[in-house]
Every structure is written in structure tokens, then in C-alpha cells.
């Protein structure tokens, strides 16, 4: 931004005048205080949404037509000893409110308490007869059909404290308790297919204690991280006839994890530094079964997962122009859950009746070198390795592979420092393969279906190109251009043509920023992202060609035409299309699936008018429009008669008027 530079600095003028005139120019001392003392603010007002906005208000709390109280602010006090007292609140009149109190002596001690809400209003309206919504006992058609809105609310309280100790040590403690309550769209399927809600009444707690050391060469950070989950509803009961005699359906079990960790870094020399992390976590899931198992006498799963992490890295500059970076990371997630027999299965089953603990061991490494060239260019090249080893089972429903390996080679050139043009061009080629796919067998020992290599286990070749250019075209105009292009080719199982075939992802964008004057600046951007994926399935194959393409643009303007007026606005628009093309290559024909289109328009205008030195009136106007032809619900009625409704065109005008006041 181009700013006016005064021939004589303002502070010098103010200081000089203050020295000469003393109290007569106390106003100037105030001006310096205004520039250097922390500022408190409060903003209060009222807003109005002209209609319900299920999408607009999904997380903002402005989901319904009507008036809303607007209240935000920050109270900051700081004394000469460096003691801060900060009380801040945001969106206090909405169901997205947050409040935080912080008190600390900088460089010595501190504590805070924080309260925050995240409410997710479901974007659909449910027309249903279900009763007991949000509770663990629900009755299908317990009443006549009526409209119901669902929401899930998270309320979190976080407490934290810190203390700096002598000789570079410090300790930090953080505890967060989150209550999550509400109802989420759920259901049960088969014959019949009924609407149900996921009754959410859960508590998540996290405790973190960190002891840190910061020295000139050595830094350490180690401690404990505990994460605890309690579900106050362990199962849902309904009058469903889907599984006669078995009215319960399981809800997520409580679980916990305890981790000890230590990270560190050491600066061997001004050009060489190493870092590491080691961690060991013990997770368990021993929530009592809500009902006695049919085929064993266990009271709980006895779930236990131990995870070990070892990571090391080194960065060095052996020559003034040559930089090297190396990293290696080993993670062993060992699921030690005891095996037990839970399900009687037939010989043709793809399960043997036991639970399946899932372990995975990852070894990843990276080596990268970069060399400085003339004109601030830097050439880089690297190699990256990622190996995953998984445990497998005698019987499976999906193809298993014990080991996958992916090696990536990259080369790039970039220019980071320049008055005019910076940017980079890079190319990465990745090749993933692994151990032979295991022949899938069913419970009887007979060979099962062996036609599809799961997408995350299959062989894959990936080529990726990225181009970025930042151009300071003129003093007023800067431009950014980004292009990402990625192509995937998947391998299939021997003797099969089915499974993932190829993928493609493109993202292009151009951004411009223009300074019209000292008082007005504008931005504009346009982008296109395009993701494609093709796969084959069925023994008489049909092909799915899937595509998600989004065209977006945005405009922004910010200005301060007068010392008493700030104004601006942002407009953005996206047009997103999901294509799901199906084509039978043999056998029965496939349906033609209509595209899904979504259009998002957002306009945000604001003006801030200073009525006094420290007081302003702020006016906000928001126009939000959501258009969709999503037919996945419109063509659907549950067996119980429930329908899920969404207004295909949602337009909301929101206007807010608030008073903004600041003081010191």
C-alpha cells in the first residue's frame, strides 16, 4: 500500500510541541498514547435476517428469520509491570458465542478461561412422525408428521495456565471440556427403511501438560496429552421392526488415550540443526457392552491400541549455496485388542466371526536438496518415501495388502526474492506399489471375490505439476497466478480390469490487487477447480466417470475516503457441478444420473462512520444466496413417511447496525 510520508515525522512534531507548550498540548500526548497503549473495544447493536437461512446460518447462528442481538468486545488492561487483563467476547448474542478471560504477567505467569459454542444447524427440515428425537428411546410414527429442525451444539470450557521458570524452563497446562448435545440425521435401512436420529449426548475432555525448555541451542517440549470420550447414550432403542427382537443399535463407545511425548531441537552450528519427537500413547476402549454378547461372555471389548512415534530431522547448509533437509518418521499403531468370537457366520461369509483389530506401521522419510542460483533462483530436488504395513486376516470382504510403498521424486525451481516477479515451478512423480495382494477367501476357505484393489492400497502413479507466479506489475497492481495439475493412474488386481482407473485434479486461479489511491484498494480473483475420477465395477462392467468442477470469482473493495468513514465490500460467486456419469460396458444398462449443481452467492457490504473520536456506527449488509438442484432427498420418502426437505433457493438479506466504541 502506498502511504503518504510526511516530511517531518508526526511524533517529532508532537514531542516538540509538547515540550514547548506542556499541558496546552496534552491532546498530543493523548495522541501518542492512542498509538501506543492497548485499546479496548465494544460493539453492540441489532441485526435482522429477512427469512430463514438454513445454509447461511448453518454455523453462524443466524439461521432463522428475525432479530438478533449483536455484541462483541475486548477489554484490555496492561500495567507497567507487564500484567495483562483481557476479557474478550464475540457473537455474544448468537449461538456461536465465545468468551475468554485472560490474566497474565508477561514472562512470568498466566491463566485463562474460555467458553465457546459451536452450533451446527442441520440444513434440512425433517417432516416426520418420529418422537424421542435426540433421545436414546425413539418411536417411529409416535405422532403425526410435522416439521422438525435438528441441531448439534458443542459447548466447550477451556482452562489454561502457564508459568515461566528460571533458566529457560516453562510449564503449561490446558484442560478442555466439551459437551456435545443434539440430534443428527440418521436412520436404518433395508425393509423397512426408517428415519431415526443420532441421539448425541457426549462429553469430550482433553488435558495437556507441557514442560518446555528454551535455550540458545537446545529446545525441549515434553509432557502428557490425555483425551477422554464419554458417550452418555450407549445405545438407541426404537420400535423398529427391521431386526425383530433386537431393538437396540449401538452408539459410539467411550474411549480414552494417554500420550507421553518429548520433542526437541538442537542447533549444532549456525548451518546445522536437528529435531526429533518421540511419543508413546496408550488408547483403550473398555466401555461396558450395553448388552451381553451373544457368543461370548465379555463385558467389554477390552480395546487397547498402543502407538509409538519416533521422528528425527536434520537441516544443514554444508555449502553457502546448498541446503539439505532430511526427515524420517516411524509410527507403529499396534491394536492389541483381544480377539473374541462375536458372530456365528456361514461358510460363505466374508467374516470369520471374530473382531478385527487393525494395526498399521508407517515408515516415512524425506531428503531434499536445494541450490542457490544467480538472480535469486533456487533449484531443488527431493525424494520421499512412505511405507505402510498393515495386519491382515484370514477371511476378508475387501482385498488386503500387507504392505504399500510409495516413492516420490520432486524437482523444482523457485524465486522467492525479487521486486517484480517471484514464484516457482515444481514437478512431482510418485509411484505406489507394494506386496502382492492377498487372495481373499471366505470363511469356508473357498476363494472369494478378488477383483478390486482398494483405492488406498492399489498401485498408483501420480504426476503433479505446480506453477505459481507473483508479479508486481506496477506500483499499484500486483497479480498472482496459480496452477496445479495432478494425474493419477491406478493399477488393478492381476486378471481384473475393475477398480479405480484414473484421476485428475486441476486448480487454476488468478488474483489481482490494485491500489486505486491512498484511500481505496481493490481485489479480484477468479478460479477453476476440476476433479475427475474413473472407476469400473461389476463383473459385467460399468464405468463411473465422476467429476466435480467449480468456477468461482470474487471482488473486494476497501476504502477510507474520509477520516471519518470506512467502507468496503466483498462479492463472491461459485458455480459447482457434480457429474456422475455411468456407462455399461457390458450387461445391463445403467441409469442416466442428473448432475448436481450448486450456486453460492455472497455479498457483504459495510460502512463505518465515526461520530466521535472513539465512537463509530457500523452498518453491515449481507446477501447470501444458495441454489441447489440436489435431488437426493427430493425423490425420497422413508417407509415411515418421513421426508427430508430443503429449499432449493435460499436467499437471505441480513442487515446489522451496531455502535463501535474504543477506549484506552
Amino acid at each position, binding site marked *: 500500500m502506498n502511504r503518504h510520508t510526511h516530511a*517531518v515525522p508526526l511524533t517529532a512534531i508532537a514531542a516538540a510541541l509538547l515540550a514547548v507548550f506542556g499541558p496546552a498540548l496534552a491532546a498530543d500526548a493523548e495522541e501518542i498514547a492512542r498509538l501506543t497503549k492497548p485499546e479496548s473495544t465494544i460493539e453492540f447493536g441489532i441485526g435482522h435476517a429477512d427469512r430463514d437461512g438454513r445454509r447461511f446460518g448453518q454455523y453462524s447462528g443466524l439461521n432463522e428469520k428475525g432479530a438478533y442481538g449483536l455484541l462483541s468486545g475486548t477489554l484490555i488492561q496492561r500495567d507497567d509491570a507487564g500484567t495483562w487483563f483481557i476479557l474478550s467476547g464475540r457473537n455474544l448474542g448468537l449461538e456461536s458465542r465465545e468468551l475468554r478471560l485472560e490474566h497474565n504477567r508477561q514472562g512470568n505467569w498466566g491463566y485463562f478461561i474460555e467458553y465457546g459454542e459451536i452450533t451446527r444447524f442441520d440444513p434440512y427440515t425433517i417432516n416426520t412422525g418420529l418422537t424421542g428425537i435426540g433421545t436414546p428411546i425413539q418411536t417411529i410414527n409416535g405422532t403425526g408428521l410435522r416439521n422438525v429442525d435438528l441441531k448439534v451444539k458443542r459447548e466447550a470450557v477451556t482452562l489454561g495456565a502457564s508459568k515461566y521458570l528460571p533458566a529457560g524452563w516453562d510449564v503449561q497446562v490446558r484442560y478442555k471440556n466439551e459437551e456435545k448435545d443434539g440430534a443428527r440425521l440418521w436412520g436404518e435401512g433395508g425393509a423397512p427403511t426408517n428415519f431415526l436420529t443420532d441421539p448425541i449426548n457426549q462429553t469430550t475432555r482433553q488435558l495437556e501438560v507441557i514442560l518446555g525448555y528454551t535455550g540458545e541451542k537446545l529446545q525441549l517440549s515434553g509432557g502428557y496429552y490425555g483425551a477422554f470420550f464419554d458417550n452418555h447414550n450407549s445405545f438407541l432403542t426404537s420400535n423398529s421392526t427391521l431386526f425383530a427382537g433386537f431393538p437396540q443399535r449401538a452408539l459410539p463407545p467411550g474411549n480414552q488415550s494417554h500420550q507421553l511425548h518429548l520433542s526437541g531441537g538442537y542447533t549444532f552450528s549456525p548451518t546445522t540443526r536437528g529435531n526429533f519427537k518421540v511419543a508413546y500413547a496408550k488408547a483403550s476402549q473398555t*466401555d461396558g457392552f450395553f448388552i451381553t454378547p451373544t457368543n461370548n461372555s465379555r463385558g467389554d471389548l477390552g480395546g487397547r491400541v498402543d502407538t509409538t512415534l519416533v521422528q528425527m530431522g536434520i537441516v544443514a547448509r554444508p555449502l553457502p549455496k546448498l541446503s539439505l533437509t532430511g526427515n524420517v518418521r516411524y509410527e507403529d499403531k499396534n491394536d492389541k485388542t483381544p480377539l473374541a468370537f462375536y458372530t456365528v457366520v456361514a461358510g460363505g461369509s466374508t467374516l470369520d466371526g471374530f473382531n478385527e483389530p487393525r494395526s498399521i506401521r508407517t515408515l516415512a522419510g524425506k531428503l531434499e536438496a536445494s541450490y542457490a542460483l544467480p538472480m535469486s533462483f533456487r533449484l531443488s530436488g527431493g525424494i520421499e518415501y512412505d511405507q505402510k504395513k498393515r495386519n491382515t486376516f484370514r477371511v476378508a470382504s475387501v482385498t488386503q495388502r500387507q504392505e504399500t510403498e510409495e516413492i516420490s521424486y520432486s524437482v523444482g525451481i523457485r524465486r522467492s526474492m525479487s521486486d517484480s516477479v517471484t514464484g516457482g515451478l515444481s514437478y512431482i512423480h510418485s509411484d505406489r506399489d507394494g506386496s502382492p495382494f492377498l487372495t481373499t477367501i471366505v470363511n469356508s476357505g473357498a476363494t472369494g471375490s478378488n477383483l478390486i484393489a482398494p483405492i488406498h492400497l492399489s498401485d498408483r502413479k501420480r504426476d503433479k505439476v505446480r506453477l505459481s507466479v507473483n508479479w508486481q506489475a506496477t506500483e499499484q497492481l500486483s497479480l498472482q497466478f496459480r496452477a496445479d495439475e495432478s494425474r493419477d493412474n491406478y493399477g488393478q488386481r492381476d486378471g481384473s480390469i475393475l477398480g479405480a482407473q484414473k484421476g485428475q485434479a486441476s486448480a487454476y486461479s488468478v488474483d489481482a490487487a490494485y491500489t486505486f489511491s491512498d484511500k481505496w484498494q481493490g481485489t479480484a480473483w477468479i478460479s477453476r477447480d476440476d476433479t475427475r475420477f474413473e472407476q469400473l465395477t461389476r463383473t459385467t462392467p460399468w464405468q463411473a466417470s465422476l467429476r466435480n468442477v467449480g468456477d468461482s470469482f470474487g471482488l473486494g473493495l476497501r476504502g477510507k475516503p474520509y477520516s471519518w468513514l470506512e467502507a468496503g465490500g466483498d462479492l463472491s460467486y461459485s458455480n459447482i457441478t*457434480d457429474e456422475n456419469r455411468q456407462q455399461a460396458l457390458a450387461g445391463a444398462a445403467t441409469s442416466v444420473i442428473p448432475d448436481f449443481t450448486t450456486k453460492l452467492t455472497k455479498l457483504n457490504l459495510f460502512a463505518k462512520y465515526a461520530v466521535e473520536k472513539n465512537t463509530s456506527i457500523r452498518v453491515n449488509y449481507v446477501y447470501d444466496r444458495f441454489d441447489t438442484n440436489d435431488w437426493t432427498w427430493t425423490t425420497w420418502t422413508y417407509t415411515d413417511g418421513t421426508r427430508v426437505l430443503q429449499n432449493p433457493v435460499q436467499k437471505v438479506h441480513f442487515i446489522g447496525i451496531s455502535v463501535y466504541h474504543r477506549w484506552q
Partner: protein
Amino acid sequence: MKRGRTLPAAALQALALALGLAVIAPAAHAQEAKKPRPDMIMKGDAACTRCHDETEEYPVLGIAKTRHGVRADARTPTCVSCHGQSETHANKPPDAKERPKPDRIFKRATGSPAEAQNQACLTCHQGGKRIHWQSSMHASRDVTCASCHQVHLAHDRARDKFTQAETCLACHKELRAQINRPSRHPIREGKVTCADCHNPHGSAGPKNMVRDNVNDTCYACHMEKRGPFVRNHQPVQENCAICHNPHGTTAPNLLKQRPPFLCQSCHEPTGHRSSPGSFPGGPTSTSAANLVARGCVNCHTNIHGTNNPLDTPASGQRVFRR
């Protein structure tokens, strides 16, 4: 009612010059010459603030409102601890046509070399969450601290939940459209930030994850998915990102593709699993309900895993239906 509540700079300047020329200035200058100019914010800053203030191209006084401006904390910096002694900048050599720049300038493309910029910050901030900085992708791509942080401003947009995403999206353009997709995290509402999942200063996890892997990062908010369960779903245990794109999607629940296509990218084409997508008006059969409503999860409701120990008929828990 007064107007022009910001700096009455022009008025002050004119006033000072006028008065100085007329009567006051000579006396004031003489008086000032006798005693050294006091520091305004930081120790030794008088050498800098005699020229640099809020009217400069790079306003500097705002740092007084930040934690860097607390002199009571002995750890806080001075101007020279970040910008260097900058002797020739402070005292322009007589033969220099233009005033030489400070020893260290904090600007992304036109400042000092990235490593030199960052080292100034790391001198104090190398510990804690920045231990892994040098090994991070950001460091290796010459991202500077000042690329994201506004050290001289009371309000650093990178550390504000409501504006942080703008900072990240300035470079990560491919995510700008994604975070506004219909299925998304509440990033634009400031309820979830990039830094909730990623540590931009580097970490021991992949993709700068704040925890040691993708799943542990997701569990911080979605702990009900952790299990383990009586029936585990393999990709769920391996990596949430096999099925979900956390930055935003058009398909519901952040799914990369809609069912049944997503499910068919792993599952064998036996029975109803290979059925093409179809959209009937109601629940006619299993395969005919695979693209409408919730798709495959119309029936397989406990898709992340179930802890149901019952051996129910019709494969209830075995295929995540109960």
C-alpha cells in the same frame, strides 16, 4: 462535534512548521539539543522513532500495543535485536545518494533473505510449537514469519480466528473454493481455524498436523470415531482422509465422492455392492437406494464402526447396520 478522529497529521505539521518558523522552533530545538531524545516504547528506540512513526510507509508504533512492546518483560526485543544495528541506515553516510536500508527487512519478496528474517524471530521463538520449523515445508519454501504475521500491529490477522484463513489462503489458493463448498467446516465463521488442524510452524506429523497423524488430529473434535470397535472399518482406522476431504466438498459429510461410488472404489462387486447409482422415489430395495438420501449409509449407519456385541440376524452388526 469533532471530526477527523484519526491523526490530525496535516494540521499538526502545518502548525509546528508555522510556529517553529515564527517563534518557537529555535527555542525548542535548542532545548531538545541539550538532552537526549527519550525512548518511546523499547529500550533504545529513540534512534529509530526520531524518524519512524505511524505516518511512515511502515508504521511502527503499534508494536507498543503488543507483547513485544512490554518493557517490563526482560525478554522483549529492541528495534536492533530484530532489524540489526543498521548503522548506515541510522546515520546516512555523506557520500550515499540514498539512505541505506536497515540490516534486516521483514518483507516476503523484497526483504532480507528468508532465513535471515526468520532467524531474528527464532532467536527468541524457537521453542515450543516452533521446534520443528526448520524441517517444515514452509521453511524450505522460503516462507518468512512476516509472510503471515504482522508484528507491528496490535491485531495480527494470522492469530485471529476470524481472519486466519485469509492469511493461509493467500498462498493456498486451491483451498479457497473448497472451504466454501456446501459441506464444510465452519472456517469462514471463525469457529474452526487452519491452525486447529495444522501447525504452520512445522510438526512431527504429516502435512504439519498438530497431532502426530491425521486421525489423531481429527479425534480432537471427533473422538467418537476413535474406537476401536467390535467391528472396525479398515480405512476408518487407517486415515480419515481416505474417504473425507476436510477442506470441503459438495457431497455431504465432507465425503470425497457420493455413495455408492465412494464405497465401490474399495468393495468387491458382489451382490448389491456393484449396483450402479440409482434414484427411486422410495425405499424399494437395497441397491435402488444407493444414491438417494444418504446412499449406502441409509442402511450401513454405523459406518465408522460398531460396538454392538450382538449376533443379530440379517448381518446387523457385521456390516455396520446396528
